[in-house]
């Protein structure tokens, strides 16, 4: 059905500006979790993406420090301001992940944290009197750090990715890709994509029916690059008297903003300049809704079970009041 032509200028197209103004006033939340072994370059990469020193590396500094025995969850919240737009940025680091000899279950804490955030949001949503704007602590993006040089995904990667992609948007990256030549990178990316398809691991961006051609092309080009082979750096070095963010080796200088050197620019643009709001939306619409559905279904089942038990116990006295089950934070869901 064709939309009717508007004769005079009505003015409802200013709604975008109105929304923008409201948005500017409110600001928004962005929560990113970093998952990867110690020494993969997580802190450096995040600090490079946001051009600020947000997180400190949690690596072992001295020989006396003990190697962590479990995965810890370390959220750090800061407010960044750019052109009047305020973002409450929370970076969640996971020191201890994958660092032990036996890494069975090192992902449990991570999955639990992500689900906890969903559960907290759900609880606030279900309250009879809820806040106008619920503080959104749900994890919008997960940067998963792959090991450069391995022959594709490692067994630990497969285990963790399977679980992570079910609860959040996962963006796989190779943070220290300066040890791979361009050919090796291409080969590695191909192997990783094959293995992800084989194990049915679906990473962000997802295809959806609402996409128009532009979106689809953009997403396709992003998917080509996955996993992003990036190099992070917080240092500025001089190259031909120009300050450049990069790394200086004895035989050459890496400029992280140079697209022929690494995918850093693509990753940053993808995360912040094009898909930022999409990350938040997909988290709300896909992952949160999935969680919510499964939770509510479980509550219903639980209530039905309790009702049946009560009915059986009371011997048909018609228990019209089902017992109110408290909203389970982390009920029967397993990590």
């Amino acid at each position, binding site marked *: 059905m064709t939309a009717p032509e508007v004769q005079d200028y009505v003015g409802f197209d200013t709604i975008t500006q109105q929304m923008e103004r409201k948005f500017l006033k409110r600001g928004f939340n962005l929560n990113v979790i970093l998952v990867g072994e110690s*020494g993969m370059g997580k802190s450096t990469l995040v600090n490079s993406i946001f051009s600020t020193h947000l997180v400190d590396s949690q*690596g072992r500094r001295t020989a006396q420090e003990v*190697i962590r025995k479990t995965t810890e969850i370390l959220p750090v919240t800061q407010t960044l301001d750019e052109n009047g737009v305020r973002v409450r940025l929370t970076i969640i680091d996971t020191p201890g992940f994958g660092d*032990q*000899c036996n*890494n069975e279950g090192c992902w449990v804490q991570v999955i639990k944290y992500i689900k906890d955030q969903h559960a907290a949001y759900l609880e606030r949503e279900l309250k009879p009197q809820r806040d106008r704007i619920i503080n959104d602590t749900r994890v919008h993006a997960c940067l998963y750090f792959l090991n450069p040089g391995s022959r594709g995904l490692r067994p630990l990667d497969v285990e963790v990715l399977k679980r992570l992609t079910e609860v959040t948007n996962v963006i796989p990256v190779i943070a220290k890709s*300066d*040890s791979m030549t361009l050919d090796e990178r291409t080969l590695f990316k191909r192997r990783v994509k094959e293995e992800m398809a*084989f194990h049915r691991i679906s990473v962000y961006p997802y295809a959806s029916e609402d996409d128009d051609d532009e979106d689809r092309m953009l997403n396709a080009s992003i998917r080509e690059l996955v996993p992003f082979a990036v190099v992070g750096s917080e240092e500025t070095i001089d190259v031909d008297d120009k300050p450049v963010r990069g790394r200086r080796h004895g035989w050459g*200088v890496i400029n992280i903003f140079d697209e022929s050197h690494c995918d850093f620019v693509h990753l940053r643009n993808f995360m912040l300049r094009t898909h930022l709001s999409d990350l938040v939306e997909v988290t709300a619409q896909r992952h949160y809704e999935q969680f919510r559905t499964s939770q509510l279904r479980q509550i219903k089942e639980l209530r039905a079970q309790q009702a049946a038990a009560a009915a059986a116990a009371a011997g048909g006295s018609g228990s019209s009041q089902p017992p109110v089950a408290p909203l389970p934070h982390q009920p029967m869901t397993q990590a």
Partner: protein
Amino acid sequence: MRAGTATQGPAIGGGNGGAGAAKKKMNGYVGFSNYPNQQHRRSIKRGFNFTLMVVGESGLGKSTLINTLFESRVYPPKDGDDSSPRSGAQVAMPAGVDITSVSADIVENGVKLRLSVVDTPGFGDAVNNDEAWRPILENIESRFDAYLAQENRVNRSKIVDNRVNVLLYFIKPTGHGLRAMDIEFMKHLHTRVNLVPVIARADTLTPREVEQFKAKILADINFHGIHIFKPVSDHFDDPETISDNKAIASKIPFAVVGSEQYVVRPDGTRVRGRQYPWGVIEVENENHNDFVALRQMLLRTHMEELRDETDVSLYESYRTQKLLALGHVQDNSVFREFNPRRQQEEEERLHAAKMHKLEAEMSAVFKQKVHEKEGKLKQSEEELHSRHQTMKTTLEKQRRDLEEKKSRLTQSDAPHPVAATGSYVEPAQRMASKDKKKNRFF
């Protein structure tokens, strides 16, 4: 011709001749300084064995480094050409640690080397790597066992030595120090093999990061008391060797890069290296990485040291532990020098001591027997005595009884005429006489 020595100790100068042998100067060239050359020629004829083991996670460039070190394709390329769309994903990681060995006979300048490289695919790749070190330790110890068995054979002319001479451990270039798995591995293996830690894929670290990383690794190694192989100099070496050794030792752990491909330098020469968009790293350039130092140490200067250390120190300690565990007892008397006179004196002494001992034993036995017998006799004497006493008392008693009876009898009767014949008057007769008296009255 040895000059006379006046020594107190063993006349045949044993291991430490300095312990009693006087130093003499010779007046002309004798020629025994040619001995090392003779040995050199014999060794070349026999050929050498060298076994090298590489351990590290997959993807750290172990095979590439081996191929680069020996300038030949010891290991075929792992991936790339063979992958069809599905095969890559279906190749599962090996479950557990595999031990594979590749041997090659290579000749250089007439020197034959039997080189064996032992690879350990699967190490550290699983989710649970608690026991990843165990198969490797068992392999090394089984090689020691094989050598021990050969040494104990009756016919030992042909011994095959496949003990591991050096283990290259590949460390991931995280920049953060050693990981839990690295420390576990090294703590279990450092007493059984020469450990040479190597920082793999060092092209990802800037020079400053390399320095910091090396310092952290060495701090971790010292903290956990891990013993790694270090080139040491002794007083025999010339100053140049000493300074070379120091230079090499200062670079441990070596930060290396391997490559089988050739790249073209800006000046047009072809060298082995890796081509990046931002530059070219050359494998054999000492400013770019420590490959040259590693090769120098492993092949050109310390190969014999590594073999020697394996044989003299590591193998011997394993052997000692194993034999003691099996219940052998150390008998040090076999180590003394053989001297006939001494031997005889020794034997005499022993004999005398034995005799003396026998004598003492016999006299002790004799004494004991005497004592026993005395005791017995005493006992029987006492017994006799007591019997005698009892008999005496019985007799005494009997006598008293009889005496009493006698006195009674003599009292009751009038003085009884004792018949002239001296016969005793019968009581019956007495009674009869009494009756007679009585009857008169009637």
